[in-house]
């Protein structure tokens, strides 16, 4: 006969630890209905799914939970949380599981992009001067070659501009011509805008890495630059 488990005797340190940080995550309220898992595209990868993962946490299987690679296959898309009748915050649970991994053991690709962002303001590690050069170079080519855009203007770090634009670093780095259509639209719309060069990358790998400190630093630097150096009233994300 199977062994009867006495739930009251379980030691669930990791769950308690997460709950002190996320009191509203409702982790204890799961009644295993499986709605989360039914609509989760990451279900069955590595033989895991959101319900099972939460169950392991609730059973105190801390070591298994903390090293299970599924935490990096789940994309924290929040579909599970949205449909959960008990409003259990599975994505934030996963974020905390990721954060429990020693930083050096977290996926190299994500870590590298986060480190680049902290160092240079974008995940691809491009120096701000190169970004500024590319922006002007693309604009110059449009002015010279594209009829109707002879007056197209771009700027970086222009104090007093109404709008600051942040953009994924992929275009300026790998396909600068793809910036052209956006610059043209802003020109036609007659927008008073500028590119900030501090933490200008629209991506955020420190968030994916669950690096609170890095994420906070990036955000603070960006906000400081906009508020104190540029004074823009509007920040616009291109994605």
């Amino acid at each position, binding site marked *: 006969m199977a062994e009867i488990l006495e739930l009251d005797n379980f030691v669930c340190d990791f769950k308690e630890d997460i709950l002190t940080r996320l009191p509203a995550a409702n982790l204890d309220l799961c009644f295993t209905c499986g709605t989360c898992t039914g*609509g989760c*595209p*990451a279900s069955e*990868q590595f033989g895991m799914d959101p319900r099972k993962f939460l169950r392991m946490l609730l059973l105190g299987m801390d070591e298994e939970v903390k090293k299970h*690679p599924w935490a*990096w*296959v*789940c*994309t*924290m*898309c*929040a*579909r599970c949380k*949205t449909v959960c009748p008990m409003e259990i915050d599975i994505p934030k649970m996963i974020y905390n599981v990721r954060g429990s991994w020693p930083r050096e053991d977290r*996926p*190299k*690709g*994500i870590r*590298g*992009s986060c480190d680049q962002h902290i160092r240079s303001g974008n995940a691809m590690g491009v120096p701000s001067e190169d970004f500024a050069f590319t922006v002007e170079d693309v604009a110059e080519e449009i002015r*010279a*070659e*594209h*009829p*109707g*855009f002879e007056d197209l203007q771009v700027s970086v770090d222009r104090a007093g501009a109404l709008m*600051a*634009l942040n953009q*994924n670093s992929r275009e300026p780095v790998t*396909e600068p*011509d*793809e910036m*052209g*259509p*956006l610059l*043209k*639209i802003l020109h*036609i*719309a*007659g927008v008073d805008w500028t590119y900030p060069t501090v933490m200008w990358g*629209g*991506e955020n*790998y420190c968030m*994916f*890495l669950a690096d609170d400190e890095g*994420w*906070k630093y990036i*955000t*603070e630097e960006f*906000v400081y630059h*906009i*508020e104190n150096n540029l004074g*823009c*009233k*509007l*920040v*616009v*994300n*291109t*994605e």
Partner: protein
Amino acid sequence: MRKFNIPHSFEFKSIIELYADWIKDGTLKVNSDWNKDLKIKFTIQDPCNIARKIGTDKIVNDLRFVLKRVVGEENFIEMTPNRSNNFCCGGGGGALQAGFPEQRRAYGKVKFDQIMATGADYVIAPCHNCHAQIEDICEHYGGHYRVVHLWTILCLAMGVLGDNERTYLGPRLTKLNVLERRQVSDE
């Protein structure tokens, strides 16, 4: 900013909302005449961050408004499910760089099937993670759709898209409505 309680006085918007405003007030003069006879079909991948995680469908509804105006209402095909009930493409959360490509692609198979079911020629994916993942699963599972940025189609519809700005367009659109570039000597 919300997570870390960082005070700020600026407003934060998605450019999609501005596109919609500019089309409504006549700032951007777009139409879908270019696609009247071609009837090229478009669908939308709603990025989780602007669909589900912000708690309102405002941006994804603006996205539909913009796209319908530039490709023609009859040429827009809704993916199922969509908006805040969409499925993540599998490229989010750092998955593209997490080092588990096999699992990422198995995850993305759901999205691939949803896209194929629309029969669309183009997917608009206004998120770079979605964009890269949806291209990758197309190649991996042998699909024929293409993934494009909204700004490309907007400029195409305004007749200001140069031949050098068509990386993501397929053969039927590479020569359509091209803004002829001036020849500039390299002296």
